[in-house]
């Protein structure tokens, strides 16, 4: 299979010089996260409190969703419910049409990425401009975000410079981030002025207040929300927290876990629309009821999309977000992806060493490694098999179940010529693209421990 994580990551590692740079860029975020962790006396308790709040909220999700809707409506918001991605797209397009909006400024929303909103709106004749700088960069390049918090983390500034030169006529070869960001600022100002409507994602929905909370560093969500007469907030239904007390826990955790900031620069709470403005909230399911229904996997709905699991993941850091071929990459992405297509995403739960570092940074303590392990069991059952792997495992398990077969296999193993074990026929041995060896098989000792033990016992 061509588009698997194994192949795509190999391309990233051997086909580009980006791996070390990408690894370090993400590790930088992990290191900043560690520094923030150390500023909080009760960090581990904060995490377990957050997990307990999410579990509580999920255990009463139907009530909280209704409370949220009631309060939001009282505040003057219009609330819609979307069963799936298609319905989110259609509701959004209808709101835009009803309000005669043709162009839209949109702040970062992994949910709308997940639901394919941009391509649909463009196809329907709307103009959509992503206003988060990172998302704008990938949008101009017709790519997808490679990370849920830092969408353009896979790109070097020279690549951004080339894209901007091509699309926005910036100076050729000028790759100064200050320069590029200032040009983007000017261009986006014009987009904000021109747009008829604003769309945002949602970080938290506060049930008791009927408010949605959006966190950004750039202020781009607010530039749209406060200047447009038509505003749409797209919210995954797992984003709810009961009230302000609980929100406090999450605003303490989110940015610290995500980028190692004490809080995002802007934490905006939208409760009531401005006069003469219509403000909509679309509550989106899109498979979340399936995740919810699975008692093992429900905890994945605690996720607050901070990206900490990606920043720490030794595999993600070296393989790049696009190697995961799913909207959300990294450990949490691999946990969610099979819900959106088991067959096409069956490789993702295997794109991990199960090292467990993600579990330890997760602010809501999702057992990511444990869930990846569970998926592996389910997917080998429920999807088509890699026959060579399956047969290998079957033979292996038969040998390892019987002492007779094991002893025999051990002796045969010792007869295998060294040249064969050290050859390319042994998948353990890896050659690097420059022809050098990457990994070789160990020297096989003359006797096994069991053989030595038996001999030793006979001797004594």
């Amino acid at each position, binding site marked *: 299979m061509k588009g698997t*994580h*194994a192949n795509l*990551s*190999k391309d990233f*590692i051997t086909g580009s010089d980006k*791996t070390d740079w990408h690894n370090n860029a993400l590790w930088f975020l992990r290191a900043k996260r*560690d520094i923030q*962790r*150390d500023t*909080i006396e009760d960090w*581990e308790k904060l995490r377990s409190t957050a997990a307990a709040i999410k579990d509580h909220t999920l255990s009463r999700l139907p009530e909280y969703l209704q409370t949220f809707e009631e309060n939001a409506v009282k505040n003057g918001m219009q609330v819609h419910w979307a069963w799936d991605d298609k319905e989110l797209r259609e509701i959004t397009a209808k709101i835009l049409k009803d309000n005669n909006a043709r162009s839209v400024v949109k702040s970062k929303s992994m949910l709308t990425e997940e639901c394919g909103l941009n391509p649909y709106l463009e196809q329907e004749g709307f103009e959509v401009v992503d206003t988060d700088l990172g998302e704008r960069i990938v949008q101009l390049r017709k790519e997808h975000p490679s990370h849920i918090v830092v969408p353009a983390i896979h790109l070097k500034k020279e690549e951004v410079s080339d894209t901007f030169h091509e699309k926005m006529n910036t100076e050729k070869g000028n790759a100064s981030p200050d320069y590029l960001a200032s040009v983007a600022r000017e261009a986006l100002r014009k987009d904000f002025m021109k747009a008829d409507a604003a769309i945002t994602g949602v970080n938290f929905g506060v049930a008791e207040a009927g408010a949605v909370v959006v966190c950004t560093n750039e202020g781009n969500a607010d530039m749209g929300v406060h200047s447009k007469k038509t505003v749409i907030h797209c919210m995954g239904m797992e984003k709810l927290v009961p009230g302000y007390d609980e929100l406090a826990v999450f605003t303490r955790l989110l940015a610290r876990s995500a980028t190692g900031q004490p809080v995002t620069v802007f934490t905006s709470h939208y409760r009531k629309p401005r006069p003469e403005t219509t403000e909509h909230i679309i509550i989106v399911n899109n498979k979340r009821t399936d995740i919810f229904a699975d008692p093992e996997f429900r905890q994945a709905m605690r996720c607050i999309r901070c990206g900490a699991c990606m920043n720490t993941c*030794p*595999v993600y850091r*070296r*393989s790049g977000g696009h190697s995961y071929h799913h909207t959300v990459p990294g450990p949490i992405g691999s946990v969610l992806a099979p819900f959106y297509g088991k067959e096409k995403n069956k490789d993702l739960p*295997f*794109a*991990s*060493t*199960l*090292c*467990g*570092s993600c*579990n*330890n940074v997760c602010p809501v303590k999702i057992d990511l490694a444990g869930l990846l*392990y569970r998926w*592996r*069991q389910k*997917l*080998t*059952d429920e999807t088509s098999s890699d026959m060579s*792997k*399956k047969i290998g*495992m*079957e033979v*292996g*398990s038969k040998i*390892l*179940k019987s*002492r007779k077969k*094991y002893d025999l296999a*051990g002796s045969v*193993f010792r007869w295998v010529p060294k040249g064969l074990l050290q050859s390319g026929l042994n*998948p*353990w041995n*890896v050659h690097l693209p420059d022809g*050098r*060896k*990457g*990994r*070789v098989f*160990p020297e*096989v*000792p003359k*006797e*096994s*421990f*069991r053989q*030595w*033990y038996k001999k030793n016992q006979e001797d004594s």
Partner: protein
Amino acid sequence: MTVGLFVPCYIDQLYPKVGKDTLEILEKTGCNVVFLQDPLCCGQPMANSGYEKMTSGFEKPFLKALPEVDYLVTPSASCSYHLSHHLLKPLVSAEELAKVKELTEFLHDVAGIDKLKASFPHKVGLHLSCHGLRGLDLGTPSELKVPYYSKIEKVLSAVEGLDLVVPPKADECCGFGGSFAVFESAVSVKMGSDKMCGMAEAEVEYVAATDMSCLMHLEGVFRAGDSPMRVMHIAELLNSEE
């Protein structure tokens, strides 16, 4: 105290010295050591590949051995983790399960290191294997805010002359990951090679760990890269007399 020694399949076949050293260390601590002939494998290679169900039957020799020993000790954190968290977990009581100990854990928590006499006057870099660190809590993982402790370092204090180095990112995964090493070989080898660079920067002669599986992968990467560094299991350090 009767200790059942479980020598996992790959250590048995490829690293018999680690089995011998473990046996001798356990004997030195004064335990009555019984080598468990029947358990061959904890089932982890299949289970981590999604074929847990193929390992039904693997539990039998362990279930038979457990009641006959005070502890079941193995020189592999990942096997110990798999036994206690997967294979045997649904089948035995918590007390029985607690008998399953990784070697360092056993020496630290149960047997003590007073009777161990070892010396190894070399600079050794510690690789903190994931399952031992994050699975069996052998020390503080770098992600958590908990008071620093390290059972491994405490146990290795029994080795005279040892210049133990814990380099930055010592607890970053080496890239082995079972069948991951083969099916995701590009990332796996890259991780191993980064570990090699980190250890080389720390200027160590040897790299030690609780898990021979990590070390088998690292050894393969070291040798392929013509690195002079060699790998050593914790048991080999604890049983060396140089």
